[in-house]
């Protein structure tokens, strides 16, 4: 089941991504499932990449507001 990206952490996303890649590598997915999983994996990769490089202004503000 797809998790809402808003609530997922980097580590969780990476874990799910790793599981998908392993499932593909061990060949336990049929082509229909593969398409679905690759789509999900692409979302996860995008999510992780953004976490790595896109500055979250909201977070910076929260930190700045610590008195």
């Amino acid at each position, binding site marked *: 089941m797809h998790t809402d990206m808003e609530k997922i952490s980097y580590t969780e996303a990476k874990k799910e991504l790793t599981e*998908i890649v392993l499932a593909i*590598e061990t060949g336990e997915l049929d*082509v229909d499932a593969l398409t679905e999983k690759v789509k999900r994996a692409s979302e996860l990769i995008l999510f992780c990449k953004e976490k*790595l*490089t896109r500055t979250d202004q909201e977070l*910076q503000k929260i930190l700045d507001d*610590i008195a």
Partner: protein
Amino acid sequence: MTEESFTLSELNRRVKNAIRDHLPDTYWMRAETSDVRRNQNGHCYLEFIEKDAATQHIVARARGVIWSNIFQMLSAYFETETGQSFTSGLSVLVRVSVEFHELYGYSLTVVDIDPSFTLGEIARNRQQVLKQLEEEGVLTLNRELELSELTCRIAVISSPTAAGYGDFCDQLLQNPYGFAFYTKLFPAIMQGERSESSMIAALEKVFQYSHLFDAVAIIRGGGAASDLNCFDSYAMAVNVAQFPLPVVSGIGHERDVTVLDHVAHTRAKTPTAVAEFFITHMEKTASELADLEERLLSQSRSVLQEEASQVRLLTKEVVHLSTLLLQKERALVQKISDSMTYVLGQRIQDQVHFVETTRQYIRMVSPANVLKRGYTLTTKQGKIVTSLQKLSPGDTLETHFRDGVATSVVSGVSSTPLSETN
């Protein structure tokens, strides 16, 4: 009152003389420094104290002074040898002359210092603190924490004005990979007597917000020599060791490994190196992600290629097998058709032959043919005569020949048949 009495100054002068007479030399003395300060003339004033090893209560105290010219020489020598500035809280071995001044009282004037004693004391103290931490089972706690894959929210404990802090932030925020880092300064005094409590207070503050951070950096700008006392303190170390987030130290000290460095998750030499450490960690995280992406692409591609080639193989097989099947069926139909043609031909030939044979036979036995061969047919009044019995002399008979009919009258009848063998 006939007994002699002194004025205070007279008495003080006597004390002064007594000290000068009885303690005329300079003496090597072990003590701890306290309240070290320099005035505008460059003279250094301090307190020497001695604490009871068990209770830590002060059991002796004396004022001390190091004159400016001596201090410049000694402090430089001390810093070079120990990597540590001459400051409060140090165990020192100093050569002193004992002074007594009528107005200012008792004091010790420092003329020499033995830095190796201090080094030994620092090392001994470090060993002691480390041993205690180990016995309490906390020494490696912070080192055992795992740095989270995405370590980008850094709580920084530093002096806000330190160059090292600026270097750290610049290095981190301008990393060449464009990684997003977040820093929050928790200001602390990083040297002097108040540094220990100040840093612990900063740590406690970070602790309150620990859910917002991935790691703590304790940094301090470099400088040749500095006061490292607070980084060897037990109270500081025990706080860092038990801190729930990984602590990275970068206190700008090349030579010494302080207690803080020991208990921290990671020790870097300088603030810049701490930033590098975080960047490298992110690089590792990013490259793991890139690796997964690459594997995902190549694997799913190869799965699809494999599927496609299987489909191609199946297609080929279907074509091949159906062609084969058609050929087989066609051959079978051909065979049936051939054998039918043959059988029918045979039948027809048989029939043709039969008809022909029959026809020939019939032709052979037809009256015309029989007549041709010399036989004749006899009739009486249009009826075929095959026996003598109905004949009587005088009957008119018609004899049919091949080429016509002759009429005759029976003159006699004799019943002798024509011989069969004839």
